[in-house]
């Protein structure tokens, strides 16, 4: 499952979600502002509390709204 670490009011997070939805890809939203566990996990994956972070395996991730890199990430799944 694709996971998107994000928080409300982050326009780039919304862009990632819209992009995934447009491609018909199901994803889970993890709000790092609302959920401390998600914040800790985001920090562990990317080393920071900067979002959007898109990941499938919790190891490889894409920071920000970068279509090309997101496509590459999805291609590895």
């Amino acid at each position, binding site marked *: 499952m694709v996971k998107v670490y994000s*928080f*409300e*009011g*982050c*326009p*780039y*997070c*919304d*862009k990632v979600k819209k992009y995934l939805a447009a491609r018909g890809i199901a994803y889970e939203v993890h709000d*790092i*502002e609302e959920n401390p566990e998600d*914040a800790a996990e985001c920090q562990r994956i990317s080393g*920071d*509390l*900067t*979002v*959007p972070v898109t990941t499938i395996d919790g190891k490889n991730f894409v*920071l*920000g*709204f*970068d279509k090309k890199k997101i496509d590459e990430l999805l291609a590895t799944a």
Partner: protein
Amino acid sequence: MNVYDFTAKNKRGEDKSLADYKNNVLLIVNTASKCGFTYQYDELQKLYDAYKDKGFVVLGFPCNQFAGQEPGSNDEVQQFCKLNYGVTFPIFAKGDVRGDNAQPLFKFLTAQKKFEGFDMNHPIASKLLDALKQNFPEFLEGDGIKWNFTKFLIDRSGNVVKRFEPTTNPAEIAKDIENLL
């Protein structure tokens, strides 16, 4: 009437009276997550650190009304946002700061101090103005809050002394704060 007549919801959703901040100099700011004007959070924190022992408090009111369209975001390489981190001044619950559903405190603040234009010398001012003209022309009418990081300086008696637009960096307000302390 002054700011002590108002209450606001804290992060836990409880009512907090601004009268609890009596005898302090206050800087009331509508904040947003770190997507644009990123440095202003850090500068606000620095002001708070510098003057809190003398009776100065920054009060942050998060608001998503301006979040969808960050000025200049299309030209920026940065396509991500950072969660506010290390901010120790009080942050209240998210809410509207403009329009019919604006929190009463912000209706009061904007009625007390009118919009007098942006500081066009600020590097982002023309971008901000263009973004507003293009996306939210109605925001430019009247005295309502125009964008994130509009700042209201309150004296030790609860009077609204001055309004600063997003185009005034927090660091530039230091002198005005010192004058009230």
